[in-house]
């Protein structure tokens, strides 16, 4: 090896990237002045990418697609953007922005996506998947019962990963760089040999899974060879470390089209190699930044073949390449390195972007210079989000974790998640008011709910019914999850990602809810005002008349905030009592992505005065315009939701006009930093930050061509604003923008 010896530790004899990082990291406390701009090569490549994305937009969101090849780790020839300028190589297919079919999740979705663009899959592929191959989607629907189908079609459960890949699993892509694949195969073989005992279902399944993982590792080596890379050995310099890590991620997105395919927490790890090469004089800062710029550029070009209905729930064609940056080690040192800065610097060198979904792990103890730089980047680009490192690290047990999907803790290489989409808690409350029937169709959804006949809603009766409804909805939700994940393992197992994770890891099942603020405000209205249900001839409540005022969630008022807190705690408790496939531990999120719009559409009028069909507030946000006591009161309300009850994450999106954040740039940076310290010190979990003028968004709606890279944070991720539907754009604009008088 040309590099100096790394400091040894347990990582030498066992697969333990964390130990390698802890022993070799160079924490950085300085400021951003060392950063450099994009290299000429990077600039040339990025121009090609910008042109390609423009063509993609002009061609109805699809530049090209391969209808012959079934995607997999090693099913395409090497592809390049512009080979001679690329220092980091590798594309999902053989051409930039060419999408690929991943039919193992569900062939119908592939067919639908293709037909929306006037295309069909080749005869061979069509014949295979209609006659011979069973997909995850086929498996799930062969086991779903009538009750689950009803919950799904009437909008109580939405966005379930039952017809495409579930995603969420984060491979520890760093392992390829640190150990090389030969070593990883050796370890997996030993693991498999050690899976012994009676051949029970669990033992047989695990032996089969590890065999598949070994095969995937071999395929990754072959895929690398097409690019002239020898991934069988460890990376020997900084460029290789970045390249090797990326190849692991690339294998994952060639094989799977999960809604969210996070990258993990690679910047601190990569910095060790970069720092080494800089110290040895092998590279300069220009090359260091170039590696990261080009790596990030590749991540921005990741695409999956989606049908347009998917866009209603997850708008803007997101891929959730979530990279967690910053945070602290358990020993009190910071994980911030110069490469943490270099990742953020890509938002200047390449311009703002929703991907990768850069997430700052915020600690009160982060170096002040880094805090300020993050605040500056958030203000300048509205492209990054923040999560509470102090709380997650302490409560969840590891300082080496990534963020799965949008906001969810996942220990790297040690733990995975089963993605559970979400249930509609506002509609659940309406079941409680309508004798267990769907408020739109009158269909009986759950039993055991006493019909309401009072002229005014009685708080205690509603509450008692709501608890029954939650219990029943939790039961059906859990049933659907068990089927989905059983079938996903069976028909679309993530062999490439699981090959980079410990054999038999811990599993969380990630449930979710939407409509929390509606529930809180509705219960508050019923308790503190008088709410008169307006019933139709079938006895269904179609509207509500509210007499008097009531406290509203988002104003730091305990009288109503307690309803939000308790609804999460109660629903989580119901879910936690149910058995889960592979003994996964249940967690819950308050997160909507952009599904708050479609959930709203499917939900009738609610007792808080929200009319039928109107979008919910996103995530755990207060309802638009109801948080009238300023930004901090709003933040405080959300911070009251207990992370212990909602360990999959509590998403809050904060939008403010620049002027309201402070008079000068220095003030704005300092105020945002202080605000983040304040919010997280109250055990809040997550914050999206948008610093934008409403006028900018309105102008971008009118003149999208002037805003090709305008990025805005929505619940848990960022989107390219001009790729949202008009309806979603409108919804983003009507949200509360904090503006002081």
């Amino acid at each position: 090896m040309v590099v100096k010896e790394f400091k040894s530790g347990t990582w030498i004899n066992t697969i333990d990237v964390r130990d390698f990082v802890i022993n070799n990291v160079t924490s950085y406390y300085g400021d951003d002045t060392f950063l450099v701009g994009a290299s000429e090569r990077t600039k040339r490549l990025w121009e090609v990418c910008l042109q390609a994305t423009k063509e993609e937009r002009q061609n109805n969101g699809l530049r090209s697609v391969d209808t012959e090849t079934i995607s997999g780790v090693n099913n395409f020839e090497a592809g390049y953007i512009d080979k001679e300028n690329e220092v980091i190589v590798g594309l999902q297919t053989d051409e930039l922005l060419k999408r690929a079919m991943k039919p193992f999740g569900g062939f119908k979705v592939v067919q639908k996506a293709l037909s929306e663009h006037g295309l069909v899959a080749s005869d061979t592929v069509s014949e295979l998947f209609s006659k011979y191959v069973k997909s995850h989607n086929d498996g799930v629907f062969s086991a779903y019962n009538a009750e689950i189908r009803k919950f799904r079609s009437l909008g109580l459960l939405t966005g379930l990963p039952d017809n495409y890949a579930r995603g969420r699993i984060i491979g520890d892509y760093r392992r390829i760089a640190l150990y090389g694949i030969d070593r990883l195969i050796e370890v997996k073989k030993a693991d498999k040999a050690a899976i012994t005992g009676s051949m029970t279902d669990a033992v047989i399944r695990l032996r089969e899974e590890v065999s598949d993982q070994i095969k995937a590792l071999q395929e990754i080596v072959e895929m690398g060879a097409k690019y002239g890379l020898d991934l069988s050995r460890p990376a020997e310099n900084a460029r290789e470390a970045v390249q090797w890590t990326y190849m692991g991620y690339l294998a994952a997105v060639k094989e799977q089209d999960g809604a969210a395919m996070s990258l993990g927490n690679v910047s601190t790890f990569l910095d060790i190699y970069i720092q080494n090469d800089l110290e040895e004089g092998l590279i300069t800062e220009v090359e260091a930044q170039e590696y990261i710029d080009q790596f990030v550029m590749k991540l921005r070009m990741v695409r999956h073949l989606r049908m347009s209905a998917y866009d209603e729930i997850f708008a803007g064609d997101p891929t959730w390449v979530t990279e967690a940056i910053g945070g602290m080690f358990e020993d009190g040192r910071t994980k911030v390195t110069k490469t943490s800065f270099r990742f953020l610097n890509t938002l200047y060198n390449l311009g703002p972007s929703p991907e990768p979904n850069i997430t700052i792990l915020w600690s009160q103890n982060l170096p002040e210079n880094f805090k300020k730089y993050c605040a500056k980047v958030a203000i300048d680009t509205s492209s990054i989000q923040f999560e509470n490192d102090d709380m997650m690290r302490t409560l969840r047990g590891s300082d080496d974790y990534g963020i799965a999907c949008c906001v969810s803790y996942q220990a790297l290489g040690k733990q995975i998640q089963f993605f559970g989409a979400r249930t509609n808690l506002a509609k659940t409350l309406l079941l409680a008011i309508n004798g267990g029937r769907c408020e739109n169709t009158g269909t009986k959804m759950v039993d055991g709910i006493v019909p309401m006949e009072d002229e005014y809603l009685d708080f205690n009766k509603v509450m008692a019914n709501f608890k029954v409804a939650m219990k029943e909805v939790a039961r059906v939700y859990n049933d659907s999850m068990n089927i989905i994940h059983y079938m996903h393992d069976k028909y679309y197992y993530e062999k490439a990602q699981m090959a980079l994770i410990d054999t038999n890891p811990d599993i969380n099942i990630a449930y979710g809810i939407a409509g929390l603020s509606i529930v809180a405000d509705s219960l508050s209205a019923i308790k503190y005002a008088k709410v008169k249900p307006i019933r139709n001839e079938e006895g269904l409540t179609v509207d509500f008349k509210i007499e008097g005022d009531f406290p509203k969630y988002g104003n730091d008022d305990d009288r109503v905030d307690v309803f939000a807190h308790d609804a999460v705690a109660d629903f989580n408790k119901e879910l936690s009592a149910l058995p889960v496939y592979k003994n996964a531990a249940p967690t819950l999120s308050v997160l909507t992505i952009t599904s708050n719009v479609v959930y709203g559409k499917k939900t009738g009028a609610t007792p808080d005065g929200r009319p039928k069909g109107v979008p919910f507030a996103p995530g755990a946000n207060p309802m638009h315009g109801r948080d009238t006591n300023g930004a901090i009161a709003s933040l405080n309300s959300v911070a009251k939701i207990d992370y212990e009850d909602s360990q999959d994450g509590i998403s809050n999106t904060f939008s403010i006009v620049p002027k309201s954040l402070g008079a000068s740039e220095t003030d704005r940076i300092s105020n945002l930093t202080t605000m983040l310290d304040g919010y997280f010190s109250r055990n809040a979990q997550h914050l999206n930050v948008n610093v934008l003028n409403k006028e900018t968004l309105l102008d971008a709606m009118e003149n999208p061509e002037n805003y090709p890279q305008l990025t805005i944070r929505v619940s848990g991720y960022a989107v390219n604003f001009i790729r949202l539907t008009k309806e979603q754009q409108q919804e983003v604009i009507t949200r509360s923008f904090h503006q002081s008088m």
Partner: protein
Amino acid sequence: MFVGVLIKKRFVIKTSENTLRVHSIESFGTHDGPGIRMVVFLQGCKLKCLYCHNPDTIDTHGGKEYAIENLVERAVKMKSYFGKEGGVTVSGGEPLLQSKELVHFFKRLKEEGIHTNIDTNGRLLNHYAEELLDDYADLIMLDIKHMREDGYQMITGQKNKETTFNLAKYREASGKPMWLRYVLIPEITNKPELLHEMGSYFKDYKTIEKIELQPYHKLGIHKWDALGWDYKLKDARENTPEEINQAVHILKQYFKEVKTN
């Protein structure tokens, strides 16, 4: 036409000693003193400045009474956001009209370790106001309306600009920090000779940390319309960037820091 209100013994109409008459509360104030602040806009003011951007805070009968303990509780809940610099600002309206109650409020805030600030036009200096300035206000922001009596009267509708200067003197004697605030209106307050006059007057003050310039804007007009009041500055224009720069340049000769809001 402004009709002067006779000064009564109690300046703001209230029912209890333990309350403050409040117009509104902003939990994320970033323009009313250092750092992030809870800003309590108090109800009632004896001046009626032509450009007032909160005219709905003028009426001494308006607003809503808040128990002081309730306000303290709110501030404590926001304390984690104040950081090293932020805290509570009372603005208005004219806070000093409720000096007696403010003594109680600020005393409680100091017990909770919260930084206190008064945004005032300096119209009143009674025994309670003195106690506030001496013991409980960590900072005051004093609004200088105009350097000359005729200008002062024209802008505020009240006589005697000296009250403001007396309050400045009192604060200077206390040795505690003060900021000046000055609304820049072309031809009315933004004139080189007036700026030099202000600079010369305050140049030896040791407690003045900075002067904040607030370029005139018309954002408050709709509030005047809502009140059915005639907005007399309709024809005034906003400053050009050059006019602002010129003012900053002049004032920098006299003050440690000149900031434009």
